[in-house]
């Protein structure tokens, strides 16, 4: 090609740079009204762009219909001692475990300070309708705090939970004892409506 374009383009760029330099020269002396207007216009455009982008980002957050399912009631009367049911809340499994005396004792007998995420068993149960701690009921979010797998109940060396994905072991209070998970299984916000009904969320 006889290169008709590159030359032309360079010439144009040259002129453009000349002009830029003229503008830059005025900068060197003292800011002018025009400089102020440039900066103010630019800032307004940036703020406007940020406002325009926000809805596009926020639309990805949980919507009203998802948030509407944020709390749910569950009946405990069908769960015998020594058994556990899994229910679904906010798309996640919730373990409701009717603990035996031995399980409660085992959870109590631990030296709290020696745990990776120190929490006493008392901190992991909630008061029943009478105001006393309802220690027979353990309610947990059944999501491993490592990478979100669902642990298996009554497995692992503490007979609590065992995560099949990466081998985390939890005790009968859902506390992390061994393995890669950094934190105890989370206790969801819940309260007793009566002796046999709880409200999660």
């Amino acid at each position, binding site marked *: *090609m006889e290169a008709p374009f590159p030359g032309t383009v360079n010439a144009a760029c040259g002129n453009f740079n000349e002009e830029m330099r003229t503008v830059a020269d005025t900068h060197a002396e003292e800011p002018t009204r025009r400089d102020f207007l440039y900066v103010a216009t630019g800032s307004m455009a940036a703020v406007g762009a940020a406002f325009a982008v926000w809805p596009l980002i926020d639309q990805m957050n949980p919507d009203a219909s998802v948030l509407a399912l944020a709390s749910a009631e569950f009946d405990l009367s069908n769960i015998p001692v020594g058994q556990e049911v899994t229910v679904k809340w906010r798309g996640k499994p919730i373990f409701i475990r009717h603990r035996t005396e031995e399980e409660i004792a085992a959870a109590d007998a631990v030296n709290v300070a020696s745990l990776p995420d120190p929490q006493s068993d008392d901190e992991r149960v909630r008061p029943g309708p009478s105001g006393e701690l309802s220690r027979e009921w353990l309610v947990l979010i059944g999501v491993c705090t490592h*990478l979100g*797998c669902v642990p298996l109940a009554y497995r692992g060396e503490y007979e609590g939970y065992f995560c099949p994905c990466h081998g985390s072991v939890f005790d009968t209070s859902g506390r992390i004892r061994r393995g890669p998970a950094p934190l105890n299984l989370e206790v969801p916000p819940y309260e007793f409506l009566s002796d046999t009904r709880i409200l999660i969320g």
Partner: protein
Amino acid sequence: MSGQSTYTPSNGFTRWLDSRLPVMRLVNDSFVDYPTPRNLNYWWTFGGILTFCLAVQIVTGIVLAMHYVPTTELAFASVEHIMRDVNYGWLIRYVHANGASMFFIAVYIHMFRGLYYGSYKAPREVLWILGVLIYLLMMATAFFGYVLPWGQMSFWGATVITNLFGAIPLVGESLRTWLWGGFAVGDPTLNRFFSLHYLFPFLIAGVVILHVWALHVSGQGNPAGIEVKDPKKDTVAFTPYATMKDAFGLAVFMILFAYFVFFNPNALGEPDNYIVANPLSTPAHIVPEWYLLPFYAILRAVTFDIGPIDSKLGGVIAMFGAIAILFVLPWLDTSKVRSARFRPLYRQFFWIFVLVCLGLGYCGGAMPDDILIPVGDGGMTVTHLSQILTAYYFLHFLVVFPVLGLIEKPEPLPESIAASVLHGTRQEKATS
């Protein structure tokens, strides 16, 4: 190396068009008369093969989207509907699913080619960086796509990967909820992954255009790793020479592709993904697709805290770091010689690195606690091996590349591309 345009419009219409939109001239100068180093070997056909893979994925993907339903209720069933009811649906889906694997086979060969022949060195740094960007986009696209059939691996793969973002301090939790659009992987997640899975291939196509542009500014590298000196002697026209060679390479590649599609369509997938997603039950063994296994091994290799960084965040940093380090490779390699042909030490380290990557791939697919070499009660587990290989992976970039360039005595380079072809590289080395 773009050189002078040799395009001459042949008739009235093309003359008219050329002065308004010189698209024929662009095609001619880029893919017909474009001067190509005459010593390119078959490892250089993978650029064309990758373009083919992208086109196949886009075409089959657009068609599959006409039948697929991105809701948790219907996704799995709609994929089965494609397999059983839609005319040729089985073929289109198997081509798309295996096409992803073929795409990654080709991209890995293409990348290792680049590593062996030093394709990332000046003046091709931007070309390389764009390539790494394409690779990143490919991994994201493949991940989104793998979620869509809504099988057990889809769901739990999505859960594990999105949970990685929860490891980021301060913003991790809200970032994860934002990605999910809920409190777990669910309907909103599936829907947006479908939208992004449709978008990303076009982003890839955009970056591919930049990649080819950068390639045509600096010119193609070549096995000798030296620049074109005399285009008349050192290069041949892209068409027919490179086009034909690419076409033959592509035909051979398509045999492999067809083998998987027609004779072993599920060999590269996980049987668990034919079980519909169940948020209440995790499969015993979660693994990503084969092409992500080395990175999964690196993620799991960090089982210990490093100062204030806990093992979870450490694993995430190591995994993303393993990809990010590729971006700065052009500045880590201190050797002026491009091709490993003339770098006796690097040649060996290159193959060690290939083996390390394959080893990481093996570790990523194995159970972390499996014992490889029994010693007494325990022994060396898969995790131990991943840790050794992960350490080597990073040492290769951070130590081997910088040091090798300083201590290695390269073999003499051929005088020119033409000389390397006409006299053979070995003889050339002996005479010079």
